[in-house]
């Protein structure tokens, strides 16, 4: 199934480790992604999915291992150079100001502009095309805060399109979206034909839209392979602590996971895992 993928590695990390106050959040993770590939990172809350992403796009810097972007270590690249190659669509906070859709999409130009550069005609064409691609042309002057969750995600995707990166990273793009929008966002991201890393909770969506799934638990990679090979009932039970059944989806022919919560013993205290957040005070 990888026949449409060329063999060039866009991003590569070896024995990636990230520690906070002597707690290991990411533990010797090997990761690489080939040009054109779509990779989902899955795992329970606190597994380190978001931290792993942040290490991969250089937000978390002082890990001792090296992340290579197109063969060059992230550590020697400026944040501007990284931003020219990697676009991030993350779970965002709402701004107190009324930014318009266009204000935000235009931000995608920032990594490509110097102090004295103004917007050119080509930039305007790029912005127009991005707005059309995510079907928000009519809403370009609406306030971001007044849009639905799915529309907000699409605005951020349009910004990423304008950024024209080699790699798109999305942190839980389907969070808080209804079923239609979940599919819409993922189909849209796939349609961009861009190298894509995303974190996601829904394993069935991951199986439908991704070439590869990385199963993460307690900062370690338990499996990294095609959906058919990663989504095994025994492995999933070990990670998610729920009985499950895996069969083949009749429409998409991809693995389909059904979890069963009826055996759940709520008397037993639930193991507490808190995701590390560097910005929390």
């Amino acid at each position, binding site marked *: 199934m990888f026949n449409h993928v060329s063999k060039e590695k866009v991003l590569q990390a070896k024995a990636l480790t990230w520690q906070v106050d002597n707690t290991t959040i990411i533990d010797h993770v090997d990761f690489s992604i080939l040009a054109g590939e779509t990779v989902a990172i899955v795992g329970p809350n606190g597994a380190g999915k978001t931290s792993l992403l942040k290490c991969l*796009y250089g*937000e978390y810097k002082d890990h001792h291992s090296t992340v290579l972007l197109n063969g060059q270590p992230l550590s020697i690249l*400026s*944040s*501007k*150079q*990284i*931003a*020219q190659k*990697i*676009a*991030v669509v*993350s779970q*965002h*906070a709402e*701004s*107190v*100001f*009324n*930014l*318009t859709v*266009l*204000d*935000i999409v*235009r*931000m*995608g*130009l*920032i*990594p490509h*502009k110097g*102090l*004295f550069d103004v917007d050119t005609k080509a930039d*305007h064409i790029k*912005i*127009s095309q991005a707005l059309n691609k995510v079907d928000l042309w009519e809403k*370009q*002057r609406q306030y*971001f805060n007044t849009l639905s969750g799915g529309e907000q995600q699409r605005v951020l995707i349009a910004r990423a399109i304008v*950024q024209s990166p080699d790699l798109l990273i999305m942190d839980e793009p389907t969070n808080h979206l209804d079923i239609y929008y979940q599919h819409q966002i993922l189909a849209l991201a796939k349609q961009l034909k861009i190298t894509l890393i995303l974190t996601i909770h829904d394993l069935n969506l991951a199986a439908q839209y991704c070439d590869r799934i990385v199963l993460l638990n307690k900062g370690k990679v338990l499996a990294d392979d095609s959906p058919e090979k990663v989504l095994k009932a025994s492995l999933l039970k070990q990670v998610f602590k729920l009985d499950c059944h895996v069969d083949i989806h009749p429409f998409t022919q991809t693995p389909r996971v059904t979890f069963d919560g009826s055996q759940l013993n709520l008397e037993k205290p639930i193991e507490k895992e808190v995701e590390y957040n560097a*910005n929390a*005070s």
Partner: protein
Amino acid sequence: MLMLHKFSIRSIILLLALLVIVTLSLSLGFGVAELGHREVWQCLTATCEKSIYNTILWQIRLPRVLLGFIAGFGLAIAGALMQNVTRNPLADPYLFGIVAGAGLGATLTNFLPPSLQFFTLPLAAFLGALFAVFIVLMVLIKNNWRRTEHLLLAGVAVSFLFSSVTSFILYMGDAFSTNRVIFWLMGSLARADQTALMWIFPVVFIATIVALLLSRQLDSLLLSDESARTLGVSVEKLRIGTLVICAALTAVIVAYCGGIGFVGLMIPHIVRPFVGLTTARILLGAGLVGGCFLVWVDVVARTALDGQEIPIGVITSAMGSVFFLLLMRKM
């Protein structure tokens, strides 16, 4: 066609240019001396009726109008920049503790021996203001900028600290010098002369140019710090640099004009619905409107009472605080 905002940049510039021209020319005709609009017009187009008019117009009225415009421009863009980089619509350059710091500096000049007379009131006020800003910034750097609201809280704390020291010194001091400082703190453009313009204009001009060059980066802060970082922007450096620019702007204006509060808070809110909130537009909009605003407030300050000036800071604070309360009610 892409339209960035409801109003095109061209129509905004045209409208604002008109406002500035009307403000600058009309405001020259107001004042205590019998030099009305007709006489001013005559002076500008031909020769003055009396030679005294020439002196009043070019040495008193014009510097004062220009100072009002430039000070209003500077205070308004400092407010707009601070609100954008802290993402806090209630941010105001005065909340840095700048006025309190300047007040303390001004107070201390009363105790200088004659040998240190080069420490004029404006210079001492400027240094006091910078000292207050320095303390606020040190506190914030130490706590790693965890929350931008801390900027406002630290500013308020420093304000109270400096004000209490100033009050104590003034309480113990003699009445004459106390009056001098208190009147200065109330704000006035009466100090308008070439020296004031020579100091304030370059600072406002350079700050505007630097902010315009950085406008794209500054815009990225409007959504969230994290989003700005993923666009390759060095968030901390940019924010602290901008705050230092705002502090310098405000400090130099306060040093010559005293405490003129709330211009930086109020004006950006008034222009935002018309020009949008991206940096380049709000800088031009807030700056030009702020300049005109302060010129007209000064006209009121000069002419409202017979034979006496109202301190300009009293008027802006009265207007500003009512505006502030209305703003809070809507938020």
